Every structure is written in C-alpha cells, then in structure tokens.
C-alpha cells in the first residue's frame, strides 16, 4: 500500500501543474476574445480611458452603427454567396475527381493525384498577378465569380485528398453487387458512393467554408467595388492611415467572428478530426 502511495504522489503534483498550465493557456486564448466582446459595448471615450474595464453601460447601438458604416450586411451576403457556391462546387467537382482517382481503373490516376496535390504546395501569391491580368481581360475582376474560381481551385486538393480516402474505404462487394443489379457507373457514384461518404463531405465542406470565409489577399486584390467586398476586406477598411474608429471596429470584429465561433462550437470535433486527417496523410 505504502509503495503505491509513493508512486502516485509525484504524478499527482505533475498533473496539477499541467492543469495550472492549461488554465493559464485558457486565459491566454479566451481573454482576448472575451475582451473584444466587452470593448465592443463601450463608447469611444471609454475605450481610451479604461480599455480593460467593464463597460459602464452596454452600448448595443455600436453594432447597428458598425453594421451600417462598414456595409457589413452586404459584405456578409457577398461572403456567404462566395463561400456557399465554392463549397457546393468543391464538393461536387472534388468528389467526382476523388472517385475517379480512388476507384476507377486507369493508368494515369496516380499522376492525376500528384498533379492535384501540387496545388497544396503552391502559395496563391504566385498566381495572383497572372490571374488578375487575365480576369481583368475577360471582365471577371470586380466580380464575385472571379473570386469563386480561384477559391474553388485552391480548395480542391484537400477535398480530393480526404474524399479519395473515404471512397477507398467503401468495400468492393458493395460496388460489385450494385453492378450485378445493373447500376451504371454514374448511378454507383451518385446513388451509392456519394451518400456513403457523407462524413467526408461534411468535413471537407466545413473546412472549405471556413478557409474561404477568412481569405483576405485574393478578395483584397480582385474586388475594388464597395458593393462586392467580402467580410475580411470590409473589416480592414475600419483602419485608415489617419484614424481608427475603435468603437465601430470592435463590433465589426465581433460580427465577423461570431458565425465562425458558432459553427466551430457546434462542430468542433468534426472540424478538428477533418483537419488532422487532411494533413496527416498529406
């Protein structure tokens, strides 16, 4: 008895230390987010006077002002449109390609996979200028479709990657019996494989959506029209070289991050799993 007590004691101290450490980390991670919320409810004078204090009165009106001044409504709609369209197209095109690479038998499937995987390594900056010049030539600049195309292309590698893993895990017998029953290859894909890979689709969908929702550089370059700006771009407009409207900026930050936080809280486990599987095998 005595010995086990001795053995457990040092472990317990270390466990306590670990918990203390992680509680400190929690503060480090949650305090800034909490603080955005607090600051967004203060008046401008208050922000300067006591940036870390509790607001004297909750200024809910800040949100309405920021919403209007930053044209956040339209920006959010634009972001939503771009992200949803990209999401749907990525899932369809990506899983079709993944199915062909994972299950269909052709010589170049390995090469096609590598070709698509290279896309993961190329930073978007490198194609920024040629794309901008080309899109300006065919009227795709200042157009949300001009954003969707590159977003789609840069979302595809992860999608193909994860989905091909899911399609490979579907048992062969299932496809064979479908084939016996007279399914065409298209029916096999749309009726059997596509629904079976729901989990994969869900994960890829979430990742694609979040990634594109936050994208700044392309949106900044490709869109200059105020009515077509996406949310991250609209946010950067709150900081001008001459002054920063902090009382409008903080509500705007809140408006921008709340949707992501809600989605993350609802699906955090799936998101986390998806991101790790996506990267682990790559």
């Amino acid at each position, binding site marked *: 008895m005595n010995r086990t007590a001795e053995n457990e004691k040092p472990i317990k101290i270390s*466990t306590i230390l670990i*918990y203390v450490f*992680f509680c400190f*980390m*929690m503060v480090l*991670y949650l305090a*800034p*987010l909490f603080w955005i919320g607090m*600051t967004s409810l203060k008046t401008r004078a208050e*922000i*300067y006077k006591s*940036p*870390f204090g509790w607001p004297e009165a909750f200024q809910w009106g800040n949100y309405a002002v920021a919403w209007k001044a930053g044209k956040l409504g339209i920006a959010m709609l634009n972001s939503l449109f771009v992200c949803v369209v990209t999401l749907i197209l990525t899932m369809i*095109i*990506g899983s*079709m*390609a993944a199915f*062909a690479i994972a299950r*269909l*038998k052709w010589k170049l499937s390995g090469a*096609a996979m590598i070709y*698509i995987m290279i896309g993961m*390594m*190329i*930073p978007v*900056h*490198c*194609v*920024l*200028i*040629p794309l901008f010049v080309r899109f300006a030539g065919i009227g795709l600049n200042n157009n949300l479709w001009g954003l969707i*195309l590159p977003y789609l*292309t*840069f979302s*595809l590698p992860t999608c*193909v990657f994860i989905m091909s893993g899911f399609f490979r895990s579907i048992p062969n017998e299932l496809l*064979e019996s479908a084939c016996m029953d007279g399914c*065409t*290859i*298209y029916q096999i*894909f749309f009726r059997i494989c596509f629904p079976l890979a729901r989990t994969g689709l869900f994960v890829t969908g979430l990742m694609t959506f979040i990634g594109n929702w*936050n994208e*700044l*550089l392309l949106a*900044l*370059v490709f869109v200059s029209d105020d009515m077509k700006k996406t949310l991250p771009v609209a*946010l*950067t407009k*709150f*900081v001008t*070289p001459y002054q920063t409207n902090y009382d409008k*900026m903080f509500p705007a*930050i809140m408006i921008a*991050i709340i949707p*992501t*936080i809600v989605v993350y809280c609802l699906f955090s486990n799936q998101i986390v799993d998806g*991101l*790790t599987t996506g*990267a*682990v095998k790559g």
Partner: protein
Amino acid sequence: MDKLLRDKKAIILFVAPALILFTVVLFIPIGTSFYYALCDYDKTTRSYSFIGFGNFIKLAKDPTMRIALKNSLFFLVFSCVSQLIMGLLLAALLTNITKGRNVFKNVIYLPCVLSSAALGLLWAFLFHAKVGINNLLANFGIQGPAWLYSTSGFITLPMWVIAFVSLWQYVGQSMMLYMAQISGINKSLYEASYIDGASKVKAFRYITLPLVKPMIGTAMSLNAIGSLKFFDLIYSMLGDKTENLKMDVLATYLYRTGFSSKGGNHYGKASAIGVILVVLCLLATGIINKLFKTENYEM
C-alpha cells in the same frame, strides 16, 4: 464490374472538371507568372517586353526587398522552431491528462479557424502605443515600448510581436497534428519502459520523440509554407504602414508592388517576387523533408 470501372467516357467525365480547373486557374498562371517575371510591364501601353533577369537583378539591389526577405526568413525560422517546441509540448502535456482534454484542445485550436484579419485588428489595438497593454503597464509605472512602431534592431520589435501573435493563433494546428501522432503510439511501449524504470521525461525522449518524427516533417512543412505566405495578420495589424517602417514581408511587398495605389502595377517585378516565394516554399519543404525523413516505425 471491371469493364464498368474502366469506362473511358466516365473517367473523363469525372476528372475533367477538376483537371481543367487546375490547369486553367493554377498551372497556366504559374507558367505566365514565370514569364512575367522575366518581363518589364509598361503601365501606359499595357505591354510586356522581355528583359531577361532584369527584375531579379533589380530586386537583388532593392533595399526593401532585402528587408522583406529578411523578415520572411525570420518568420520561417521562428514559426518552424516555436511551433515545433510549443506544439509538441502542448500535445505531450495534453495526452497526459484525461479530464478536460477535449475542452483545452478545442479552445487552443479555436483561433486557427477565426479570421486573421479580424484577430489582427484586435492585436493591433492591444499593442497600440498608448492604449491597450501599455495602458495596463502604465498603471504599474512601466513605460511600455512602442510595440508596433519601433524600427531598431536587426529584427524589429513589431516583427517579434507579430511572430508571437501568429504563434498564438496557429499553434493549435501543430498541436493537433502531434496529438494525432502521439495517440497512435501503442500504450504497451510506455508500460514496458516504465517497468524498466524509465521516467516520464525519458519515455518522452526515447519513445515519443522518435515516433513523432515523421509528423514533425509534415507539420513543419505546413508551418514553413504558412509562414512564407504570411499576409493577413501583417496587413491587418500594420495596414499600409509596412512601407515606412521597414516591416515588409515577401507577401506584403508583392501586394504593394503589384497592386497598391502608390507604387503599384509593377507586374513584372511583383511576379519576380512571386517566383522567389514559390522557389522558397519548394526549397523549404524539400529541406525539411530531407531533414526529417525517417523510416516509419511499426507502431
């Protein structure tokens, strides 16, 4: 069955959209980018004239480019090293506890999914010269430094601040990857080592570390590419001030050369920066994969 899976028409229908997109939106532009890098772009006539390596020679002599390159390499090294240490540390500690593990994991991962542009604004305010953290320090009678405006030192203070902010934001990613790898290690290995009298630290050093080594390669290449691409945070924290304050990185310099209202539209020069960026990405991943190339142990 076999015949069905070899259906040429179906194969083409399934892969064609993805491959066409890739070729048109990614590979042809990359080729064009390499060509533009060798050209001089005339704003008024909108024409490109071939000038060989002129852009690269110009960039080699350009002091801003040197600063941008220096800062980018700093971010590269800093993020690779700090993410490795912090990521592994967090992962190793988290796998040691059971209660609350998911909560800690999810909270630390949270900033990764949030917009860098939004978080950058927050940190810019916290590191403001008068309000923010300095206001807090002033209560204790400490005069805080001008976090985001200091220009002294080889690596300026703002760069360190931003490097730490990006560590704060993205360390969750590395932590996740290492955790996935560590939780895949067979528990019996640890039990055997404890019976042989190994301490927890020793077990970490001689069991965990060698077995996560393949993952270090993957995570580090992700960090390397991410840090070279680094744009959102800097842009939203410093905005257009990067120019005056010697705080450019490759991505912001590319953006400024190509698109800013003041010095913009040097497409040739900007493409040359883009080419350098890609080459750096490929080099960094190549080197990292070589360094951490290990045979996969049976686990």
